[in-house]
């Protein structure tokens, strides 16, 4: 799910039947995941261009079926642009709960093949199946099995790249999309990589890409032939060394199972820019509530609260503060977020986006709380836990802070 998925081309260094010896790494990527999940509920839309994303003026495409992609629609594209490119597309607003439910099921399925599963998004994961060879079969056999079971049990398709390292596996799955399987043999990595455009490498964003284009580097092969010292000079020590290694297919990063969330955040782009601090604080409250609910749901607490504030001109500042104790309480996150907002000195500045994030997560078990003078035994946290229960029973919005009831859109600085 990135801007690069529109880039086509590149050579195929292998295929489903290639030699998978020494290729224990699988990258499984769901095909147009959110859209595919939506189609389960709306089978009549199969074969038609379907876009998932908020329909508003500032909505972006979260997912698009391959029928829509044929028109040039891709994820992260502004919705207005997508509709222009493909006026016939059906736009479905996202329902994240549904996707994460399917995602959880699929991740559990992966777990039944190997404990070494590293989810990197709700719709993709790395698997290291080196230990499953005796029990189940070779990596390519497992990949085929996973593809079949995902299709049969969840009704959606996925593409699997099989390779000796994580980043090659990821490139391989991209090359065989949709609904494909590609094995890049261990001795065919260089052959597979070198014809690919350099922008497909992990860690090459727009900025790096234009820096490389200036040097006349277009393909991974070009990159591989540049002396590492030159790359380090042009791109910095770390990035240069990293790319030089990747260009020859060297990627030592292991599959790290269960990467715990490092942070949980939520952000909101306003329908139109806002400068009223009252409206901004109300949004900070809503986001704090959302973040706190997700922290509690995942059994996390975090000590650092940060806010992100983006001005109309897209310049963005983030400010953070580390609390005395880790928290999962919306009231505390909100109070800190408001302090940070006040200290940022952007009170009458028009903001396009605000975000709240809690970092430094750890499990809630074993976390203790220093009581304050006059603090009641049952505090804010208990109130919010009770609200969680009501929400689980009666659905989202069952309990919300009073100031978020009936948001006054007339104040939204129209």
């Amino acid at each position, binding site marked *: 799910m990135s801007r690069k998925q529109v880039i086509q081309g590149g050579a195929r260094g292998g295929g489903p039947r290639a030699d998978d010896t020494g290729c224990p790494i699988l990258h499984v990527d769901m095909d147009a995941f959110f859209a595919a999940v939506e189609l389960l509920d709306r089978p009549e839309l199969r074969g038609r261009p379907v876009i998932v994303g908020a329909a508003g003026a500032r909505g972006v495409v979260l997912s698009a079926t391959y029928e829509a992609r044929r028109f040039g629609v891709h994820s992260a594209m502004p919705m207005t642009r997508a509709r222009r490119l493909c006026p016939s597309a059906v736009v479905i607003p996202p329902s994240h709960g549904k996707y994460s439910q399917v995602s959880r099921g699929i991740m559990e399925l992966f777990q039944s093949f190997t404990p070494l599963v590293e989810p990197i998004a709700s719709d993709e994961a790395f698997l290291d199946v080196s230990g499953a060879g005796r029990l189940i079969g070779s990596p390519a056999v497992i990949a085929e099995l996973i593809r079949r079971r995902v299709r049969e049990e969840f009704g959606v398709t996925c593409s699997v790249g099989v390779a000796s390292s994580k980043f090659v596996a990821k490139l391989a799955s991209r090359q065989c999309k949709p609904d494909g399987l590609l094995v890049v043999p261990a001795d065919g990595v260089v052959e597979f990589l070198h014809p690919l455009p350099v922008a497909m490498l992990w860690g090459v964003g727009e900025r790096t890409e234009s820096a490389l284009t200036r040097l006349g580097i277009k393909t991974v092969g070009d990159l591989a032939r540049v002396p590492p010292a030159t790359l380090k000079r042009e791109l910095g020590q770390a990035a240069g060394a990293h790319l030089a290694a990747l260009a020859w297919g060297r990627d030592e990063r292991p599959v790290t199972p269960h990467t715990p969330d490092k942070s949980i955040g939520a952000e909101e782009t306003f329908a139109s820019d806002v400068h009223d601090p009252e409206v901004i604080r109300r949004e900070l409250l809503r986001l704090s509530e959302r973040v706190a609910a997700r922290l509690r749901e995942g059994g996390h607490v975090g000590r650092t609260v940060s806010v992100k504030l983006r001005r109309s001109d897209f310049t963005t500042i983030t400010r953070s503060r580390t609390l005395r*104790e880790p928290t999962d309480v919306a009231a505390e996150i909100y109070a800190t977020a408001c302090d940070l907002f006040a200290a940022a000195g952007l009170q009458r500045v028009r903001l396009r986006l605000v975000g709240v994030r809690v970092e430094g997560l750890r499990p809630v*078990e*074993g976390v*203790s*709380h*220093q*009581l304050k*003078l*006059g603090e009641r*035994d049952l505090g804010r946290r208990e109130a919010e836990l009770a609200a969680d229960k009501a929400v689980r029973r009666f659905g989202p919005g069952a309990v919300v802070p009073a100031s978020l009831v009936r948001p006054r859109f007339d104040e939204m600085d129209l």
Partner: protein
Amino acid sequence: MMFRVDRDVLAEAVAWTARSLPARPSVPVLAGMRLEVTGEQRLKLSGFDYEVSAEVTLELQSGEPGVVLVSGKLLAEITRALPAQPVDVVVDGAKAVVTCGSARFTLLTMPVEDYPSLPTMPPAAGRVGSDVFASAVAQVAVAAGKDETLPMLTGVRMEIEGDTVTLAATDRYRLAVRELTWQPGQSDFSTIAMIPGRTLNDTAKALGSTGAEVEIALSSTGGKGEGMIGFTSAGRRTTTRLLDPEFPKYRSLLPTEFSARADLPTGSFVEAVKRVALVAERNTPVRLAFRGGEVVLEAGSGDEAQAVEVLPVDFEGDDINIAFNHQFLLEGLGAIDSDVARLNFTTATKPAILTGGKPVDNDGPEDYRYLIMPIRLSS
């Protein structure tokens, strides 16, 4: 202007005055120390940073009247390093020359007319022994907040009712209260003042070394506005601006009924808490389980290092498991000034009260109370 003075006397007076000088002065002259020789052969040294003022008056061996402003920090460093011989200071135009034995320093002077005049001393309110005052302030200031973003918690509250002074401070996690008697100017004197905690502690400590009585002067009575408190003792006087007299209504927070009481020898309790706290990270608890005649101290948990120690205890009441921030507990134990530490409990999530467990004789019982809020362990 010129004067001659004993080196030790000068060094001590300069050091005391320099304490109140700002580290980063908002105006350059505030880094200065003002030296004035008065007609009566006295030397007056003063420093001021708009919050705190300090002034010492010394008897001189000889001198010619005049006034000069020099860098206080530099003068303090110089006088500290001088040999034990009489010190001569002579002002010559824009320079001040300090001579002592074979050493000679030339200091630049600052424009004395730019220096703000020190606040006048508020009216005297009463007197207290400087050593009693210093120890009482130290016992209370330990609980004052250190977070400058919450200024109202960095103060020590001084409540005066006739001949009783009650000092109190809290950082919301603990609360220290100390009562002492003093000699008020008027027997029905009554007021409340919030004094910046660190300044008060420094001042009380510095005056405590004189062994004389401290005269306390107050210019505000509870209300809003630019209140000021002054302390005078043995030729030294200092003033401090007061904070807003905003403070939690703490008396109602002090429990009066308890479900259990524990008496422990302070020394071995402190040692044991320090030992088990070695495995407790900052802000993590030390857990205490009181069962009959013993207490089990524990810290650390699960996948971390752990420590446990058992101490005999003179315990009465219901068994209790309670956890505290070890730093808060140790600071309280360090402040009670008694061989026996007494802890009174109600429940594991209600404040515990730490007092000196000495027999009820002098000054009535519990002239010092240190309330400490427990840490609630996640269930």
